[in-house]
């Protein structure tokens, strides 16, 4: 069997909740109410809107007329509004506090971006409008493309992919098209390091490739000798993240590119961590053939429940002819979208989305670029790296950094060696952070580090905010080492819900919604 060897506890230990003291009578907590599902609220007879009775449409529905109530929850407008606002109070968001999820780059979404994205000329438009009526929007796409190409040192970009993994798919499809056009369709293997994002091997497999893992060195980088041994005439591409998921710069990236090209393969770079090097390193100079850029990470557009992503892919000279449509061209008569796979787009491998991509994300990313400028973007990367190194330096006496030698990039990575013999696991530690008012870091990823804790502060945080975070972690670490296991074992103690029994939830899912009987149809 194929096996993921990284273990984590999935069940809370025997509860000692009665020791936790005061509980309210109704399940409320402070001013926070216990929130039922919307289907359990309000019954079925009320409605928040006043609509005329439906006209019977018996004849037009070919016998498919509804003969039972559909059971939509009946709530007045204030009930519906309060339900969702109360749910939002239970959420965590970057607008509430530091959001240290490593690999996710939860940086502040500047309000200026939001204002620009709501301009009527950019928000109230339709993808099927005549291009002559949306020249400004198309020009913005062209300028965004120019910035992305300039920042990466790459000659072409496909804007339309809608997320990082969608960008990976776009890049590999371009690589596959290039190989097939050159009569190299027999290359069926993709190499990816053990520390890769899970989407890398998944994308390669989705494209019909066989994935082979590249080993990692003790200091967390691609093992060059292993890469060289596994390259050959059967390899279509390698997929390497830089900086990698251990928060480290791939020191030998130029040599990785040379070996890959020598073997006739293409170098796909996972650009999820581009925020650590933007303005300082151009992937095109490193020999990268294709790389996606998560606009929602590097260029601050909302994500993680706050909005859709966008994953434009920059392409090298060799792959540019195979870029998916559409793309923007302009001449004296204005801006135009190339939509069809003909003429200059004759070799395009197809398209990644029905229309043109996430316009709202384009506007936000472009606003972020313009408001920072070239020097500001460079400082974004510098501050993100500085913040991560500050956290690493201030916690290394209590916690064990996974790669103590040298600086990290934008993420500080710890393993769980420092928790040995404390009876506290990475999961316990992360849950206890919730009690202290902080969202946990990414845990148990990357898989190559035991009990990994991956912290990414981004450039958003001030020193004062970082110090508050660090102080909370230091207090927790000292408590763990002092044997205060009760503080950790069933944490969080102060959250609206206690720790889930994931095993029980999967084996015996409790489908809580028990509808009250719907009201009969009005006609009956």
């Amino acid at each position, binding site marked *: *069997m*194929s*096996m*993921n*060897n*990284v*273990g*984590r506890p*999935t*069940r809370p230990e025997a509860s000692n909740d009665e020791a936790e003291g005061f509980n309210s009578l109704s399940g409320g907590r402070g001013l926070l109410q216990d929130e039922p599902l919307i289907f359990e609220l309000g019954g079925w007879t009320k409605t928040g809107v006043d609509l005329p009775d439906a006209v019977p449409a018996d004849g037009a529905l070919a016998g498919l007329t509804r003969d039972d109530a559909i059971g939509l929850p009946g709530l007045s407008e204030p009930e519906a509004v309060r339900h969702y606002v109360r749910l939002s109070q239970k959420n965590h968001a970057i607008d509430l506090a530091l959001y240290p999820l490593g690999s996710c780059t939860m940086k502040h979404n500047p309000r200026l971006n939001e204002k620009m994205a709501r301009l009527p000329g950019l928000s109230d438009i339709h993808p099927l409008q005549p291009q002559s009526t949306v020249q400004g929007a198309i020009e913005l796409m062209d300028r965004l493309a120019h910035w992305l190409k300039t920042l990466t040192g790459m000659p072409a970009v496909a804007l339309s992919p809608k997320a990082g993994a969608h960008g990976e798919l776009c890049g590999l499809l371009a690589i596959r098209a290039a190989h097939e056009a050159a009569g190299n369709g027999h290359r069926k293997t993709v190499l990816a390091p053990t520390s890769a994002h899970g989407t890398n091997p998944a994308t390669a497999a989705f494209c019909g490739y066989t994935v082979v893992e590249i080993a990692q060195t003790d200091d967390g980088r691609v093992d060059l000798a292993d890469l060289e041994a596994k390259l050959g005439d059967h390899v279509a591409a390698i997929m390497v993240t830089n900086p990698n998921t251990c928060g480290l710069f791939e020191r030998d990236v130029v040599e990785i590119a040379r070996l890959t090209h020598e073997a006739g393969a293409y170098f796909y770079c996972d650009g999820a961590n581009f925020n650590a090097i933007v303005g300082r390193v151009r992937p095109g100079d490193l020999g990268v053939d294709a790389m996606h850029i998560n606009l929602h990470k590097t260029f601050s557009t909302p994500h993680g429940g706050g909005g859709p992503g966008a994953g434009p892919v920059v392409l090298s000279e060799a792959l540019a002819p195979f870029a998916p449509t559409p793309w923007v061209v302009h001449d004296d008569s204005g801006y135009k979208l190339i939509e069809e796979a003909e003429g200059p787009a004759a070799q395009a491998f197809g398209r990644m989305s029905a229309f043109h991509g996430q316009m709202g994300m384009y506007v936000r990313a472009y606003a972020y670029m313009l408001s920072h400028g070239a020097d500001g973007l460079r400082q974004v990367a510098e501050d993100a790296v500085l913040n991560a190194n500050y956290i690493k330096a201030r916690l290394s006496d209590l916690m064990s950094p996974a790669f103590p030698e040298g600086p990290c990039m934008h993420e500080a990575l710890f393993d769980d060696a420092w928790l040995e013999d404390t009876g506290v696991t990475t999961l316990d530690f992360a849950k206890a952070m919730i009690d202290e008012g902080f969202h946990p870091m990414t845990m148990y990823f990357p898989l190559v580090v035991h009990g990994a804790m991956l912290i990414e502060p981004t450039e958003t945080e001030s020193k004062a905010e970082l110090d508050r975070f660090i102080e909370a972690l230091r207090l927790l670490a000292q408590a763990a080492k002092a044997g205060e296991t009760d503080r950790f074992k069933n944490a969080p103690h102060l959250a609206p819900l206690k720790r889930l029994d*994931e*095993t029980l939830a*999967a*084996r015996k899912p409790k489908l809580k919604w028990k509808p009250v009987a719907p009201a009969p149809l009005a006609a009956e």
Partner: protein
Amino acid sequence: MRFTKDHEWVAVEGDIATVGITAYAAEQLGDVVFVEVPEVGKTVAQGEGLAVVESVKAASDVYAPVSGEVVEANAELADAPETVNAVPEAGGWFAKLKLSNPAEVDALMDRDAYEAFLATL
């Protein structure tokens, strides 16, 4: 009982091989919450996917350690996947195969060799 490097076990009686995952694999997977066993009559070659086991942390393919035709599948695992954790090398078996190439069994590791292999992980 014979073992593979992918942590499956095989116990042969006559030309019928019972297949499951090892105690080590069950321990590494953590709490098993779902098992998809093959349909009776399915033919598998050695190394092909035979079953799927899902724990709280991951879904994994179980490969056929030997080639053959599925003659019986452990239907009880549908309601009691925890059996795989409780008795992985007995009642937690996945399927019984009618061997099409008995020589494959001899090439697998015996328990001593498997234990030695585990020590290297």
